[in-house]
């Protein structure tokens, strides 16, 4: 049975602007965590810096609020050192696609089992409304003195190209749909990302709730099967996903773009090299015996015998 979403609330006041799309994302997270029955002590939410990155303080699971752009590499260390933890990253579009985009690409290449929730409001909320990497060229949300001079990056295409094996898009104000996506992403073995369209009521007067309401449609409403069931299907499913990724403008698809559940994760790759990796990951290994190192002089001599010269 699901746990109540209320179990995951903290008593920290949620200080987002009234009406902010982040509330929808938070609500979806509470429900998803509850339905997945994620144990709070074995779950870690890691975030960067931004309005969206305050999320961990509002959820009663372990929270690690890191540096701007760096949530992913913190999460990487946590997950590799203790793979039994469920690790979720929350971050803004500036955080994950601007300053920290290199880490996003690297996570895809590693296919490490982490879920990335990308709060895509197309602005830098916390620094008062500058253009983010998902804002199209020529647009001018209200805080901008001049129209945006950069082209936008396509988060779905970038994630696909990077090697994420679960790539989806959700909408902050469709909490039920988003909750299902989050559940799928967390359950997925491998690097997962959800590009979450998130209205910023204070700074983004272009991509408003109304804007999205008119354009959004669900992929699963049509004939759409994003799941790779056989390695032979990879190329075709990937190309389909890419083509959907560039469907933008009047119609914006949400739902799962691509899922490849069979790819080995970075934990699998380490487990292949280090046979006891899963049973005894870095976090759980015994390194001392009553204060003495487990490597004594004799063992040391054996381990490093290649470096030892026996004299004549």
């Amino acid at each position, binding site marked *: 049975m699901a746990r109540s979403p209320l179990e995951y609330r903290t008593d920290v006041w949620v200080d987002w602007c009234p009406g902010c799309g982040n509330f929808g994302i938070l609500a979806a997270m509470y429900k998803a965590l509850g339905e997945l029955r994620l144990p*709070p*002590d*074995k779950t*870690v939410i890691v975030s960067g*810096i931004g309005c969206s990155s*305050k999320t*961990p*303080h509002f959820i*009663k*699971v*372990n*929270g*690690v*609020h*890191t*540096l701007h752009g*760096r949530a992913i*590499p913190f*999460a*990487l*260390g*946590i997950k*590799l*050192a*203790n793979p039994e*933890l469920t690790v979720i990253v929350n971050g803004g579009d500036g955080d994950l696609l601007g300053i920290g985009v*290199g*880490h996003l*690409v*690297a996570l895809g290449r590693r296919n490490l089992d982490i879920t990335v929730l990308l709060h895509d409001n197309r602005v830098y909320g916390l620094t008062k409304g500058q253009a983010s990497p998902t804002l199209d060229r020529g647009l001018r949300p209200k805080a901008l003195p001049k129209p945006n001079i950069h082209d936008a990056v396509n988060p779905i295409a970038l994630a696909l190209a990077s090697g994420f094996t679960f790539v989806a898009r959700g909408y902050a104000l469709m909490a039920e749909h988003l909750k299902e996506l989050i559940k799928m992403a967390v359950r997925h073995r491998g690097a997962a990302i959800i590009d979450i369209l998130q209205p910023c009521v204070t700074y983004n007067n272009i991509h408003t709730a109304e804007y999205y309401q008119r354009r959004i449609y669900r992929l699963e409403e049509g004939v759409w099967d994003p799941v790779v069931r056989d390695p032979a299907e990879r190329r075709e499913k990937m190309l389909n996903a890419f083509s959907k990724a560039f469907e933008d403008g009047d119609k914006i698809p949400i739902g799962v773009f691509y899922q490849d559940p069979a790819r080995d994760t970075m934990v699998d790759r*380490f487990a292949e*090299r*280090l046979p*006891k*990796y899963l049973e*005894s*990951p*870095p*976090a759980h*290994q*015994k*390194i*001392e015996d009553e*204060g*003495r*190192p*487990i*490597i*004594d*002089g004799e063992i*040391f*001599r*054996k*381990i*490093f015998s290649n*470096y*030892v*010269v026996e*004299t*004549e």
Partner: protein
Amino acid sequence: MNMRKEVSLIVGGPQGAGLETTAQLLTASLARMRYGVISDREYFSNIVGRHSYIHLRASSEEIPRSLTYPIQIIGAMDHETVFTHFGDIEAGGAIVYDLSTEDKSLDNIPSMEKDLTSRLRQLFSSLGLDGSIRGLIRHVSSEMKVLPVALNYPELIMRIAEKISLPAAQAPRYVSAVVYGAIAALLGLSFNGIDYAIKMRFRERGDIVSINRMIVGEVYQMVKDKYDLPFSLQPSGLDHSEIMVVSGNDSIAMGKIVAGLRFQSYYPITPAADESFTLEANERISVEGVDLGAITVLQTEDEIAAMASAIGAALTGARAATCTSGPGFSLMVEGLGWAGMNEVPVVVTYYQRGGPSTGQPTRGSQSDLLFALHASHGEFPRIVITSGDHLEAFYDSIEAFNLAERYQMPVIHLLDKFLANSIATMPLPKLDHVRIERGKLVKEAVGERKRFDSSYPIPPRYLLGSGAITYHAGDEHDEMGHIDEDPENREKIYRRRMEKLRLADEEVPEEKRVFYYGDEAAEVLLVGWGFVKGVALDAIEELKRDGIRAAYMHLKFFSPFPSRFAKKMLEKFEAGKVISVEHNYLAQAAVVVKIHTDVKIERNIVKYTGRPIYLSELVGAVKKILGGERRVVLTHGP
């Protein structure tokens, strides 16, 4: 025949031509015969072609601690080596060179830096030399009684190659064997020692072992017959039955493994990356089929991620570290502050190289001390320790983790390229007294916990995955880890964080943080840190022979700084008789000493060319200071 107590030599050649092999063979065979060895490797940031050399010192009486000039032997793999180093040879020394390069001229060495070419050109014209190897060799043998050991490398190798039908294209690979064989003969090394070294170097590769053995054997015999072992070392007076041959990178990797390192992240950079390679090669710690542990070694996308992932791993309780040099540490700095703010025990092994910017990537330096002490915005406590030699670095790398966990703060283990790349004989470390102290680690707990509980000077460290629910934030936070900017909270939590360093200062004995070597009644005090230790210790002995009583103060901890102890040592000396000896321009350690002891060190001997300080030049410089100079800038070494 007069036997030598010690010998200094240089083996040089183009990068990528097997120089390392020669050095490894030499070191292993010397070690096999119980000689102590230290060697410095000098190279460019280049893969193939640029001049690189090994400067080695071997002794029958001790494990040498420093390098010195002049040298007795040059082993030249190519003619550039002869041109570059002939000036450093002692009268009566020997040059092993390739007879087939006799007509080569200084004018045609594209790999040589133009500064050196023009200096040499000037010198040659003042000496009336024609700029050829032939002319130069004739000059040094008549003017300096240098023994030319002329061998036709290609001919020699081809002669043997034909016997065993080795493809001609592979011949150049064996130049290192020729040079090694000749030097081994000049030094009078035993064939047993040579054989042992070849087997140790090439291990399973039996075919390579036998080819090398043939070439080395042939050259060895030739040189031995012709020259009668002119530089024979006297039998070793050392009495160990086994010894390790390691680089600084290796000894630190070994220390980290003993310390229980379980997660190491890195982004490749000179001169740090070799440490991670050694770790990765030993990722599975197993002895006779029994697994004792495993290290996750991860090459990240950049140093920012290296730092962040090491912190992440540390939050789960794994002993975690990253290693880098200056450019990488520059990128790690923001993460370092987060670790300070969140009281995370993470270890950064920091190998200094020449800066600023890309600087001199493959050369040594001690110019990042102030940076290591102050990097990152805001105030937070950190521990900064440095090591003077291979064995010290081994033990310090274990202590780094103990301190990090005991005081819940980042520890920077600050080293330099000199140590990282110098290959030396090192006694097997003694592990009986080594302790693993994990501090206030909580492996099992339940419910929400105050990770930053202010009722303790150092709070219990609830791990991610322990069963507790905790919060961490780079923002100022309350005891729970939630953002809190209340002034009273700020004051309380800030103070507790900062006070941990005072606690460390109280608890870590000062006599483990600074060391005094030498005569209690000395009149001159050298002050140094890191790799300066070896040369300073040798210098005080040599000065003693010249009637100058000198001592050496070795600084190991720069944070927390051993203020009282250091001050006491310093105040025993007249102001003009305290000299800081450092590999930087500012005499940075002297700056730190002034801050903490209010003692101003008014004399300094500095070197920032990227080459190590040599014994010969340090002794000379100390005498200059005693003669009234305030500062001596050293520049020796090509």
